[in-house]
């Protein structure tokens, strides 16, 4: 957590801040539009601020807004939030060996604060989990630097969006900046032909299955892409370990 001075003093903390700062503007633009969207959809300022400070997950907030507005049952809204966040379940499986040496409250704090970009930057810089206490501290500091920038720009700009909601026309479409930053992240993750294929299959599936309720189209898209690529990897006789390291 960035409140700990021992973490802030490490050079990896500043490296994490530096690497993430190029994305801060994209995150901020997305946060700004999420803040505007909440107030414009008739949520009270208190509700919007509470959602920003507590939920801290742009895509599930945006998915929840129309459901809240339509008076959907609570379990439907929570299940939708879970489905939209399913990718984080996968990320948590990946992050587990990086965090398990910490006490539970500490790894849960890191987990809560680690969103898409922090996960992508962190696992790209550290391809394998830490060995020994010094590496553990270095990786923790880098991750903390990453999400420190994300958290500040998201919170600052979301709150600004809530404050300015009635002055920023939604039809400017500034929220598309957030989509564009996710495009960059998908490109950075699609490092092998099969991973590019996975992104392509998922895109097509998510569009074709869009009519499914609860944003299940995203879950179906992940399933289709993973199963097809898993099958193709076997058919092509690719070496799983070599693929992992690309």
């Amino acid at each position: 957590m960035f409140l700990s001075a021992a973490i802030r003093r490490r050079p990896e903390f500043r490296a994490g801040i530096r690497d993430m700062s190029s994305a801060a503007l994209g995150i901020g633009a997305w946060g700004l539009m999420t803040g505007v969207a909440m107030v414009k959809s008739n949520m009270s300022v208190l509700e919007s601020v509470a959602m920003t400070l507590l939920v801290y997950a742009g895509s599930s907030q945006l998915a929840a807004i129309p459901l809240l507005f339509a008076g959907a049952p609570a379990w439907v809204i929570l299940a939708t939030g879970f489905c939209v966040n399913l990718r984080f379940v996968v990320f948590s499986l990946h992050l587990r060996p990086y965090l398990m040496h910490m006490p539970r409250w500490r790894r849960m704090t890191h987990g809560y604060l680690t969103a898409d970009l922090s996960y992508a930057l962190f696992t790209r810089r550290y391809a394998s989990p830490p060995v020994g206490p010094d590496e553990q501290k270095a990786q923790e500091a880098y991750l903390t630097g990453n999400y420190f920038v994300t958290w500040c720009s998201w919170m600052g700009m979301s709150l600004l969006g809530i404050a300015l909601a009635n002055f920023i026309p939604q039809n400017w479409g500034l929220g598309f900046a957030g989509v564009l930053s996710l495009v960059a992240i998908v490109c950075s993750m699609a490092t092998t032909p099969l991973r590019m294929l996975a992104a392509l299959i998922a895109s097509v599936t998510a569009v074709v299955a869009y009519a499914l309720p609860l944003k299940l189209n995203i879950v179906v898209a992940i399933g289709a892409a993973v199963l097809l690529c898993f099958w193709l990897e076997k058919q092509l006789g690719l070496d799983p370990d070599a693929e992992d390291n690309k």
Partner: protein
Amino acid sequence: MSGTTDFWTLAVIVGLACVTVLTRCFFFILDRPWGLPDWAHRALHYAPAAALAGVIAPEIVMSQGHLITTLHDARLYATVVGAAYYYWRRGVLGTMLAGMAVYLPLHLWLGW
């Protein structure tokens, strides 16, 4: 204008916060070791890109739940330019700025 606050909405918001914690920490809340089945290990390397692509693809090629039928849509050109920028120079900020530099004029002036 903004609406009124009610406890049901606040309770749902707290519930959504719990969903965030649950999903982001799913596999490291418990200390119990998890045996990774082979398929899950493979999925790790395809699922993140697939998940994000699945989230953004409808944002780019659909409007109001339908596939767009026109090429006069600023999002298409912004995405192509953004992705091209990424492969040329890397960097999330540049991708976003290049994409928005295409998106905003087309969207605001031409109404695409």
